């Protein structure tokens, strides 16, 4: 038990660490393949951490609600939003390519049916003729009725829409000679290029709806956004855009108020260090905005051209390019050395906190 719990993890960590180090410097077989395999594993494991995160979130908030801890109401809100976004995000999107009566504008119904019936029964090949030949008898009758009466009744509309949806399900609707010169996106071209037997119903609908839109751009509406799934226009994205993004931006924006208040109350010239920091902050804050540049440009130009180096934008660039970079480099080097030493401690089994609190 002691071996499985304590020694085995240390052995695995030691060998993995050493092999990865060798693989970095010796990218040839077998180390190169090991490196590739390990980094692919890492990606898969990293994906699972998301699941772990959700499980941990649920457990924590469930405990809060069960024990009635302070602020448990927020946990209930969290559960509701989690469930709603998860359901709408995970569900497969509905078929958005089929037609609904609202996809043809109310005032266009009569004109659309007239064109369809007239050209469909004509001799000239074209989209109308092609669709007319594929339309079921009832749908043709409905189109004829609307065209003659100039009044699109609900039953007639539904009958024609049902017929058109049947046409949209036909994998052989598109023929080049019937739809000359219509705009086809690369996606539609890709679908048309495939063997129709390999296409699923949704793809056939997508392809034909686009063909129909290309043939009747003024009559057939654009494809609607799906409610389900996680694409643009879905409930999931609505929650992201109008709740998540808005709430996050609001919380972040509050910083402006707190920074201003804190700057007024706490940013004091108490010590030399604080004074240097305050002066630098003032220069950078003014130097990074147009008024600061304008003001200092005016002063340096009016007083003396030798004072150009005192321009606030120049001073700001100096601070960012030299003192900041020097400090940052020191931090980066320190971090790098710390990472190396910590990694060595983990590989050699000196650092064992990752194995749990017992260690």
């Amino acid at each position: 038990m002691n071996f499985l719990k304590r020694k085995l993890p240390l052995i695995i960590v030691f060998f993995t660490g050493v092999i990865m180090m060798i693989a970095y410097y010796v990218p040839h077989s077998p180390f190169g393949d090991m490196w590739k395999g390990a980094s692919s594993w890492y990606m898969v494991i990293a994906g699972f951490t998301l699941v772990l995160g959700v499980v941990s979130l649920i457990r924590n908030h469930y405990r809060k609600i069960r024990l009635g801890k302070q602020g448990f109401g927020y946990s209930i809100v969290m559960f509701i939003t989690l469930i709603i976004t998860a359901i709408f995000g995970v569900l497969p999107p509905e078929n958005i390519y089929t037609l609904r009566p609202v996809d043809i504008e109310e005032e266009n119904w009569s004109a659309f049916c007239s064109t369809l019936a007239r050209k469909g029964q004509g001799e000239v090949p074209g989209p109308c003729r092609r669709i007319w030949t594929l339309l079921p008898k009832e749908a043709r009758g409905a189109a004829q009725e609307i065209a003659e009466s100039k009044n699109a009744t609900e039953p007639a509309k539904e009958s024609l829409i049902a017929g058109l949806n049947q046409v949209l399900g036909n994998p052989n609707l598109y023929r080049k000679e019937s739809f000359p010169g219509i705009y086809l996106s690369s996606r539609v071209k890709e679908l048309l290029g495939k063997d129709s037997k390999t296409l699923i119903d949704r793809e056939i609908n997508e392809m034909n709806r686009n063909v129909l839109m290309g043939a009747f751009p003024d009559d057939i509406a654009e494809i609607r956004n799906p409610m389900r799934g996680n694409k643009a226009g879905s409930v999931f994205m609505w929650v992201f855009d109008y709740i998540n993004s808005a709430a996050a931006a609001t919380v972040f924006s509050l910083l402006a108020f707190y920074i201003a208040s804190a700057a007024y109350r706490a940013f004091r010239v108490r010590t030399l260090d604080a004074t240097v920091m305050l002066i630098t902050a003032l220069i950078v804050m003014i130097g990074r905005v147009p008024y600061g540049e304008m003001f200092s440009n005016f002063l340096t130009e009016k007083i003396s051209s030798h004072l150009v180096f005192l321009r606030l934008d120049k001073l700001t660039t100096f601070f960012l390019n030299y003192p900041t970079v020097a400090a940052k480099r020191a931090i980066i080097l320190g971090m790098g050395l710390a990472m190396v030493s910590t990694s060595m401690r983990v590989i050699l089994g000196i650092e064992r906190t990752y194995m749990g609190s017992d260690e």
Partner: protein
Amino acid sequence: MKLKTAEKLLSIDRRIIFLLVAAAIILPIIFPLNLPVNVTDEVRGVYNEIQQLPPGSKILVAFDYEPSSIPEIEPMAKAVLQQCFDKGLKIVGISWLELGRGNAEKVLNIVESEYKEKGDPIEYGEDYAYMGFKPGKQAMILNLGSDFKGTCKTDYRGNEVYSMPLLEGIETLGDFDYLVCLHDDSMINHWILYGHEETGIKIGSFCTAVMAPGIYANLNAGQITGIVGGLKGGSEYEKLLEYKGAATKGMDSQTVIHLLIVVFILIGNIAYLVKEHHLKKERLR
């Protein structure tokens, strides 16, 4: 200044400060100041690098920012995408941040509809594609460096990347002509460490203002070609593209609020010094 006045100033109600801050932000939005913007070398470094690429060049755009940073980064994202599409460059998007996916989809949709309205539509799969969220962070970048398509496998719409015409000729991360990194955290360090250093890909940073000072070290070392930092950087980029977007409009508010905070600091410190002076005098007595 008397001691009483100094004490009054030091104990001012914070709600007054909040009201002044709100006014400083809102008023310039209602009454724009149209302040001039000077373009810095850091911003020009990114712009020039993209501008010199021939049409058809491929750019990888990393959407690595959270929704809280949308006001700062989205204007830059729109500006750089517009520059690329206007020049006929091809865009491939990717995110290693879960929330970056929603931001990427949003901004790509906005830009796509803008081009559609202009009568010059851009097409998914031909002009741009988005790989979606790819987990694994450092490992993901390393894998992109050795096998881009094998790491991505599918785009966010579920299309196989192997058959995507846009990705023809792209085998590794190094085959891209440039990497635009839109970030609000230290992700760029990993793109530099595991992307630039491994494959030599050139990188431009588009980041929040708070992140910018931290990456000047990378700029000085030549690991990135430039920095577009915060609304200021965004407004400079918009100036180079000769249009006024959200960043340029936001700079008026930012200017006034910066000046207001400077005034706050000065008043606070003058009052503090006066109080200290009086207290010192009293102690000596």
